[in-house]
């Protein structure tokens, strides 16, 4: 499996996608992420492991806990970004085009 496929698969899960987006916002610890998603800390840890194995995020020790960052390597990041960009663009387009035409 190529790493882009792995990244795609990793982001296919809605919870993992949410976790990835949280980490994209700013580096966070497992505890911080767990407070933001409706799953247990051990489930979050499993998701983080998948994201790490797909080279989407990396982990750095900070004090007693680990902090997760976006992994600056890998084309998958650009693809993930584009996927989000176009999804957002088309959603906004739908709102615009369905407004009654201005005369």
């Amino acid at each position, binding site marked *: 499996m*190529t*790493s*882009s*496929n792995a990244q*795609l698969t990793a982001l296919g899960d809605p919870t993992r996608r949410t976790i990835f987006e949280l980490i*994209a*916002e*700013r580096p966070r610890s497992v505890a911080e992420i767990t407070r933001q998603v409706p799953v247990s800390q051990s489930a979050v840890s499993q998701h983080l492991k998948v994201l790490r194995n797909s080279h989407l995020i990396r982990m750095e020790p900070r004090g007693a806990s680990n902090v997760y960052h*976006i992994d*600056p*390597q*890998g*084309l*998958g*990041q*650009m*693809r993930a*970004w*584009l*996927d989000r*960009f*176009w*999804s*957002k*663009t*088309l*959603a*906004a*387009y*739908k*709102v*615009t*085009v*369905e407004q009654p*035409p201005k005369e």
Partner: protein
Amino acid sequence: MTTHISPSPVRQSVVVEAPIDRAFKVFTEQFGSFKPSEHNMLSVPIAETVFEPRVGGHVYDRGVDGSECRWARVLAYEPPNRVLLSWDISPRWQIETDPEKTSEWEVRFTAETANRTRVDLEHRKLDRHGDGWQGVRDGVAGDQGWPLYLQRYADLLGRAA
């Protein structure tokens, strides 16, 4: 580590309640009104985004200070069915001047009924940006390019929240 990365195209679709002619017209003429505002390579806010409706034209952002950023070339313009554009932005988040290193995005419009249109977007040939990625990987320690861009994007999200 894999050495050859060939990402699959990004595919997105949306069905809109509008006739095909209007769907095409709004997508091209009003592109700047729905393009996410964080898509900005200028150092100043965007005053307007222009989609030039012809092959050989560009999509460009004009900043409030008059500066311009041409980030897409119109490769096909076939109203009301299809447009094909280049994506001239490198993984370092800079304008890519070598067309061989640009990806492309196609938008197809299909009438489902007289008042309903399906819009399919495909952003493909992403691997053509590949050399840039190697450079990013080897030379940039994560303070430029997409990580920076993601951060800027996140800052905007944070502000909007």
